[in-house]
């Protein structure tokens, strides 16, 4: 499917989500509650079959954390960027998608480690790189006492 078709299809499929063309790829912004269901649909529906999670990351925006999923379909070779905003910036929580894409398990651990986003129903949510008592360094309010990295 080319982008316009895909956009129309997605807009029809996910009525609660906001589908818009981004700078490079199509973007879907979903509600946190719908995330898991959307992920299952994106992977499961044969016309979409986004089976390859390229990249999972989080961004700390002033009002909320945003989790960004770059998805590609190996079969159709189209790409989409799935986004979800958390309700709370300080104690962010979203559902895990590690049961949909296995690789998300460790990408989510990384996001948890660096941004402090908790993933509900994640089987093994531990810190990946850093110590338990270390802060969440990629948050904008993180103060690095030793080596000050400031913008």
């Amino acid at each position, binding site marked *: 499917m080319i982008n316009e078709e895909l956009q129309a299809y997605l807009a029809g499929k996910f009525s609660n989500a906001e589908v818009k063309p*981004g*700078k*490079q*790829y199509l973007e879907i912004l979903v509600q946190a509650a719908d995330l898991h269901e959307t992920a299952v649909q994106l992977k499961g529906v044969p016309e979409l079959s986004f*089976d*390859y*999670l*390229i*990249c999972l*990351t989080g*961004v*700390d925006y002033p009002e909320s954390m945003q989790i*960004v999923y*770059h998805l590609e379909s*190996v079969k159709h*070779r189209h790409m989409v*960027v799935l986004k979800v905003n958390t309700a709370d910036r300080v104690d962010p929580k979203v559902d895990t998608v590690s049961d949909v*894409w*296995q*690789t998300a*398990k*460790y*990408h989510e651990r*990384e996001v948890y480690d*660096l941004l402090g986003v908790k993933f509900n129903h994640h089987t093994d949510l*531990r*810190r*990946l*790189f*850093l*110590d*338990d008592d270390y802060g969440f*360094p*990629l948050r904008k309010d*993180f103060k*690095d006492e030793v080596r000050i*990295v*400031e*913008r």
Partner: protein
Amino acid sequence: MSETKEIIITSDKIHTDEYLVNMGPQHPSTHGVLRLLVRLEGEMVHNIQPHVGYIHSGIEKMCEAISYPQVIHLTDRMDYLSAHMNNEAVALCIENALQVEVPERVKYIRTIMDELSRLASHQLWWCVMGMDLGALTTFFYGLRDREHILDIFEETCGARMTLNYSVPGGVMFDIHPNFQKRVKEFIKEFRKKLPEYDQLLTGNVIFQERTNDIGYLSLEDAIAWGVTGPSGRGSGFSCDVRKHQPYSAYPLVQFEEKLATKGDTFTRYRLRMEEMYESLHIIEQLIDNIPEGDYAVKMKGVVKLPEGEFYQRVETARGEFGVYIVSDGKKNPYRVKFRSPGFSNLFALNKMAAGHKIADLVAIMSTLDLVIPDIDR
């Protein structure tokens, strides 16, 4: 420390037949500071739990404090064997964001350098593969040939590994007058040396016995775990960014995306060997036709990206490398994320190696071709 706590938890749960072995953080076959917590029964591996972060350097955080051209310098330090591809990814991402069209010459040079880096990386992988399986001589054969590529790099941009050659808008310097001659010499020589590799290792009965039929990774698993690069393609996962989202001069050259379906260790090995031939083929097509022109377009002193999010994928020697830049219009990025191939590849190790012997684990890990700073970033 969290680590100690963890071990106690784990040993409570382990089966009486099993015991825990820490492979790493200092272990000859992890090739870096990687710790694998391996649960063994005798020689049989039941479970592998990778522990990473020993050399986590917070590159993503550092990027938030520096300017865009400076980000490129840090990418060298991640996957130091694919330094040029990483540089290029950031450069391309910035160029895309600024809608800058680079000269043809730059595209050619970048592609040639890409493929040379890929060759150098695969050569080193080959050395280490043999070494992991106990054939130390391969190490010296591979390094001997890699030296030629590094010499070319040195002559081109002054560095041998951390090239730092791509800059936004082009490359840092024009190629050396000797460049084409030396690359052609190298190709001619390496075409003769590659069959030697096969004679020494590929054709060896012990090597084939050691690598055949171990470490299976099915196509579904490869996609689900995001295993890319030669490791993924060995399972039939068509994931070559050079084909699917071509960049630089890749649309202009003829090459094949090598795919295999068996998905075992030997297949992945063969695939990388094939890729070396393919890389030579790509360079041969480009090296004589480098167009004249500028080696870079003039950029503003301070690079400022427009507000928005930009993602750029490139194919490094180990798989798909992605740069995700969120910009708020200032002179330094708001958020940078590097999607490194090694990170995804590493965590598929358990899937592949559980149920095999320790020796197989080493062989399987070797075909994943891990570079630890690439994982830890």
